[in-house]
């Protein structure tokens, strides 16, 4: 049970949040131009890193805002939270 610092609301219990998987996967602007393989890469392929991972989180039972989080999956240490659209920090 982490404590997450929502960039809009502040420090809250993990139970208020839901995780949306890997961050910084941009939906292709022109999907029709893509081959099956290229589309599948966007659609299905996700990393599952043991270590520092960039993730999307949603303050589902709070402000409902999506934001990004850098978490070490091996010890659940949260290195950073930042708003959507902001540049990922260097960890």
């Amino acid at each position, binding site marked *: 049970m982490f404590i997450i610092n929502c960039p809009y609301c502040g420090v809250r*219990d993990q139970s208020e949040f839901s995780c949306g998987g890997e961050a910084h996967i941009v939906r292709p602007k022109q999907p029709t131009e893509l081959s099956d393989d290229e589309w599948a890469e966007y659609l299905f392929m996700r990393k599952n890193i043991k270590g520092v991972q960039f993730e999307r989180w949603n303050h589902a039972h709070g402000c409902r805002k999506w934001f990004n989080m850098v978490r070490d999956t091996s010890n659940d240490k949260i290195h950073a939270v930042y708003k959507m659209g902001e540049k990922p920090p260097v960890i």
Partner: protein
Amino acid sequence: MTKYRINKTRFVDQTKTISFTFDGKKYHGFEGDTLASALLSNGIHLVGRSFKYHRPRGIMSCGSEEPNAICQINADTNLTEPNVRATEIELYEGLRASSQNCWPSLNFDIGGINNLISPFIPAGFYYKTFMWPKSFWKKIYEPLIRLSAGLGKSPSQPDPDIYDHKHEHCDVLVIGGGISGIISAKIAAKNNLKTILIEDKNILGGSTIYQNNKNFIIDNKKSNEWLMNEISELEKLDNLIIKTRTSLAAFHSYNYLLAKENISDHLPLDKKNGDIRQRLWKIRADKVIVAAGAIERPLIFNNNDRPGIILANSVKKYLDFYGVSTGLNNIIFTNNDSAYETAVSLFEKGISVKIIDIRKKSSSNIVKNAEDLGIRIYWNSTVVNTFGYKKIKSIEIMNLSEDGSNVTGNKHKIQCDCLSISGGWTPMVHMHTQSGGKLDFREIDQVFVPSEKSENHINVGSCNGDFELEEIVKNTNNKVKKFLNINESGFDKISVLCSKDLEKKNIWLLPNTISEGKTKSFIDFQNDSTAKDIKLALREGFKSIEHVKRYTTTGMATDQGKLSNMHALGIIADTAGVKMGTLGTTTFRPPFTPLTFGAIVGRSVGKFFDVVRKTSIHEWHVQNNAKFENVGQWKRPWYYPINNENLHEAVQRESKTARDSAGILDASTLGKIDIQGSDASEFLNRVYTNAWSKLGIGKCRYGLMLNEDGMVYDDGVTTRLGENHYLMTTTTGGAANVLSKLEDYLQTEWPELDVYLTSVTDHYSTASICGPNSKKILKKLFPNKDFSDEAFPHMSYQDAIIDKIECRIMRISFTGELSYEINIESKYGKSLWENCIKAGEEYKITPYGTETMHLLRAEKGFIIVGQDTDGTMTPIDLQMDWIVSKKKYDFIGKRSLYRSDTIREDRKQLVGLLTDDPNEILEEGAQIVSELDKKPVEMIGHVTSSYFSPNLNKSIALAVVKGGKKMKGQKLFVPMENKNINVTVSDFIFLDKENKRINA
């Protein structure tokens, strides 16, 4: 006093007698006793039978590590509880305990036969023996295992007790109320930190509280007296909460901990009912100090499991804490100094005691103390066998060879009635590892100790591998000060004198003269796994500790291997010739000790189990005899039986009336999302498969929403209320998910769009009126409105007023009938509904529930997302190509509709099914095959919806079938248990293909 209650202590009040029963026989104990100490005071050691061999077993410890004394409490009442450790339960008046795992009785046990055939029950016995033949499993093996497994009986009546949950926050949480926990709590609380100290026993003090040996002195006082004084000072501190009878269940990341407090477990039966029994504390602590202590290890030698063989420090606790002697002729068998404290204590109470020590010598104070008292010590010796069936009678010892790998010389037999064993100590690192901490192996005394990395918790005392009193006190003081950034404490100038254990020797499996195959050297007492089993597992190729554990079931009983894990590891390391530190340990998972379901669930039982959502019209449904169905958290009317109608009869009547005259449905539960913003139309274009830009204001349109993988996700009608204003409806179950999916796209993929989403599901109630007479009813309700097809066509909406209240009327249909939906602010929902019913009376309007709704839409071939689809259906599979825009460049899921997999023609596709016998109704979920004789039978699809249609007077079904689009007219089969049902693939629109009824 009984023969074995030989000592008066301040912890047991011998003026307060308590009566209890064990296996039906009445006994007495005193206030302060545990069930185990009371049984021992009555001379009772035999309390159970072992799991596999059904060997007689006795009380072996005094705490949560107890493997043998597992009882059923208050059998045959609603308070009964299985698998309770006699060493942990406090005695109370009226307690009825019975032994487990000893059918038909403790003293005569048919399972004992397993003991005689034990050469044939090796490791993996269950896996090997009970595999074949398959038919034997259900009828012979399983009942046999269940009968002799004896894991107690769960109660058959509802739990009468109340369980509570409470959240708590603190600066410092101290786990464990022994000497190091007390020092830690005092330092924290004295420095203005809000501190909580939890202790699982009923009093503080750990093992020091009964340590009256003169070799252990703190500030010139015996350590127990010093600690007693500290505790009384501790209790005066303001910002310290002391919670006794509270055990830590789990230590999660970010210092989130669960602790269970026993509130009424120790109270007499007549004072239990109605009160809170247990409370689960959910604690978030800034800092955690773990002072969980250590557990004494047994020694592993032949027949080390007889009743009367007890851990040495437990013998001391029974004597010095409870005043009970576990025997009158005691032998201590040890590899370390701590057991000498037990020997001295026994001697001082006048009990005969001898010591067998595997070491060659020890020159510590406590050993010298024992020697000075004249206690006989057999150095460099080991026990090779024990005798006595239901209680130990004697032992045989031999000398150890120079390197300890073998025995030499002659066997020497010694009489005894109790054998106290000590194999050293194992730090309780469970909490540390649960929180994510790692361990280091310490070679000198063969223990795993916490490897401190965390900034937010520390381990102090013996759980940190500090075993000497001086180390415990001084290291605790120093570590806690550093951890809490404190410069000085009241313990800085403390003086501690203690005996120091300098000679270390450890042999995981003690040698013997007889071959290993013929010995029974138990490692896991509860699950009956022996050293031999572990070696067999290694020979059979199991290498990982996790595999050996599961194969031999070592460490998998209710004590979770608290006594057995280290020895199992040690024997694996020795046998495989590897270093123990390289093996790792098995994973310690929460809870540390078993939790009751009640404590986990808390107050979320009965009507508090889950949120119940009711529409504003709910009361009317109840008064009109509706049967309800759960849809998500909603209670929806399922059908409205009249007189004694069953589901089928009611639904047939409702469906017929709705098509012949008029029906009304409470559609309030459908999800409603208010969409506003200058880009609202563009947003809908991107999330739905069809086009939205050209939808006129005041018009409605059905929309289908896909996942990015092209599979149907949700559907519903969306109405354009204004230029930049839409009202979207979703399925009842999908409402929340659709909203969060739309928010996700808006915030993360298309932040440039000016769109705002608001859930308004609960804001509006919806009455949906359908049937050929619905227009007449609407005219009665809204006399000033023009309901002609020209003024108010299908798929349009208008504002209206009823009883001075504004409402919205949508002319949309999910039944295929002429149909209107009236949305009104929720608080007026019931009055609107009652007006509709009144207006419809002359047309015999029928309220109908979800079942009739499902039937009516199935007649029209309308899908229900989640019933006819399962997340693997594209709109093309559903033959809904018409709703997929070819012109739009992109929408969610579009690209996936022509992946190589989604364009396959043999995908499961939606079809209609007609049974050859029109009265035969298929079962939903039934499998469909095309060839009955082919083996194996190939399943080509399944039935998704099936009803008897009163309007068509025949059975109809929707199904998904591989390549179904091209199979119209083809014969298929639905094999059931007793017959094969013949069906024909048909169109899935069964009624009114021309859509005439919508404008009837």
